[in-house]
């Protein structure tokens, strides 16, 4: 019976492990919410500038943020940009950044890791030295250096992140491969005469990809955070672009309000900031649940 096919059973078991975890359910719900917002953005917050929906609309140029009102549901930030619009379209930006960067970085990392693990020897040594060098400088610092060299802008930030972010994937994939290579079932396949490439593709890669998957999920959040910080200091998205980090940057001078009402402009920071936190939280929760689900030691507990 198809329901008793071992692979399907394993899949069902894994799914149950993932969703049996209440935190995972919260994560998935959050993610679905964000996906919905991103997909339906043109309907939820109709763009003012047809040629570039990422430009936030602003009525006027006054620097003081205005609190939530009937025209601006979340209020406006410095320069009268509508926070609600920014929050909605910023979701799209966040997805763009996270998925683009992680996909490219993961692909590069996995390919290099596979080459390193498969060939071993000099190739492995060389690649590992290069990875060591790229690792030596913190992600943020390298990204800043590259952005300074290439120029500001969200696209440059994304390229810079992708150029640096692959380093962890190489290590993770390589260690996965090295562990799997020695396991009995791989030795058995070798003894049966299966070619190296087939072993790599059919046995090692499908089994070794899990830690990479877990890392990728959690990395999406990290990348969005780094990009947000870059926008915050002014190296990323330009002013008025619908990016959460950019929106926090706009409110820089309004962190503390007048002495009698210091939290007056809370919405300018908390709302875009909250979006970032919830977005990252969603990916982290899912990544964490995946890690617990895939960990063989905790699996059958």
């Amino acid at each position, binding site marked *: 019976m198809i329901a008793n096919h071992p692979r399907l059973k394993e899949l069902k078991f894994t799914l149950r492990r993932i969703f049996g975890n209440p*935190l995972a359910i919260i994560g998935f719900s959050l993610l679905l919410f964000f996906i919905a917002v991103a997909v339906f953005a043109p309907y939820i917050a109709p763009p003012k500038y047809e040629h570039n929906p990422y430009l936030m609309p602003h009525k006027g140029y006054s620097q003081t943020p205005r609190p939530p009102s009937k025209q601006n549901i979340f209020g406006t930030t410095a320069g009268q940009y509508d926070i609600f619009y920014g929050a909605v379209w910023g979701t799209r930006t966040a997805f763009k950044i996270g998925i683009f960067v992680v996909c490219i970085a993961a692909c590069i990392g996995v390919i290099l890791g596979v080459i390193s693990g498969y060939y071993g020897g000099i190739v492995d040594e060389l690649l590992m*030295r*290069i990875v*060591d*060098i*790229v*690792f*030596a*400088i*913190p*992600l*943020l*610092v*390298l990204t*800043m*250096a*590259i*952005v*300074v*060299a*290439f120029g500001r802008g969200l696209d440059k930030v994304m390229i810079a992140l992708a150029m640096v972010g692959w380093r962890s994937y190489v290590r993770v994939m390589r260690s996965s491969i090295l562990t799997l290579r020695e396991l009995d079932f791989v030795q058995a396949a070798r003894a049966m005469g299966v070619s190296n490439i087939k072993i790599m593709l059919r046995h090692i890669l499908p089994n070794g990809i899990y830690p990479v998957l877990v890392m990728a999920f959690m990395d999406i*959040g990290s990348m969005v*955070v780094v990009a*947000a*910080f870059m926008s*915050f*200091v*002014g*190296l990323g998205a330009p002013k008025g672009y619908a990016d959460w980090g950019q929106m*926090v940057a706009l409110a820089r001078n309004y*962190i*503390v*309000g007048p002495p009698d009402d*210091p*939290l007056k402009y*809370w919405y300018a*920071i*908390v709302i875009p*900031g909250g979006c*970032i*936190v919830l977005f*990252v*939280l969603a990916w*982290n*929760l899912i990544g*964490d649940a995946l890690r617990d689900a895939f*960990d063989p*030691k*905790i699996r059958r507990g």
Partner: protein
Amino acid sequence: MLGVVLFGVSILIFGILMTFSPERRAAAYVSSPQQVKDIPAIVEQFGLDDPFYLQYFRWIKEVFSGNLGWSVVAARPVWDAFWHYFPITLELNLFTSPFIIIFGIWLGTQAGIHRNTFIDHSTRIFAITGWSLPTFLFGLIMLMIFYGYFGIFPPGIISDDLGMFIRENPDRFRQYTHMYTIDGLLNGRLDITLDALKRLFMPVLTQVVVIVALLMRVMRSSMIEEISKEYILTARAKGADKRTIYFKHARKNALIPVVTVAGWLVAFLMEGSIAVEYIFTRQGIGWWLASSAISLDIPVLMGVCLFFGLVYVIANLIIDILYAYIDPRIRLT
């Protein structure tokens, strides 16, 4: 081995720099509008047109003789500015590190021992939230609440009055370490120490929360793995009480994989200090780097990158030594 890495780092940094055209790089040597006309002359003068390796060796030679260029942001040579900013960052990290280590290991051990209980679940939620909070955002919110609303824990390094006093009275207040907390004690000025501590509190808290979240999880999973091992059963069968089992046997072994992660933690510490220093306006290396990036102050970028590379290499060296100390299996090899 480490020398190779450093060498590679320097090449990497220099390589990034070289992506600028010679004219743009010349702009880094320019300090007044009139000199803009002279850019071709500057290119000529500094040999900015020469092949890569020539320029690289020239630069390395300068680096080794202490000349890292001029920082626009600091209005003084990079080397001097570095020693001006370094104590601030050192002070911050000196205060964060012990808390991170103590809380991370303690909470992680407890979560691992009391697995799937309330302690475990609550620390897990704390860990995930802490990890999801971007450092800069957390810092901003803390600033809003504690400085804006409650009026305690102001940003900056020292209050304006005290700062002026220190600057104008070098004979009455000797800056031995250039760290206000320690110098305050050494000079018998507790009020300076307290003021500096007050302003340190938020930055330290911000860093600690985010990094403890990571360390705790690693410690926890390491403990869980150790506790299920066979030698723990032997210890139990020997008549060891729970305390001896967990802390004498399991935890020591569990620390080994944690030391591996220590490299990551150092990196996060450094990254975090950039955000924290920028948000709380503490002029340390991180702040300097961020400001230089915004102002395209290239020599600073290169110098600070080198510095970070150096820190990483030294940290890994220390970690390797620690490894050999904890794990006797590694010692003979």
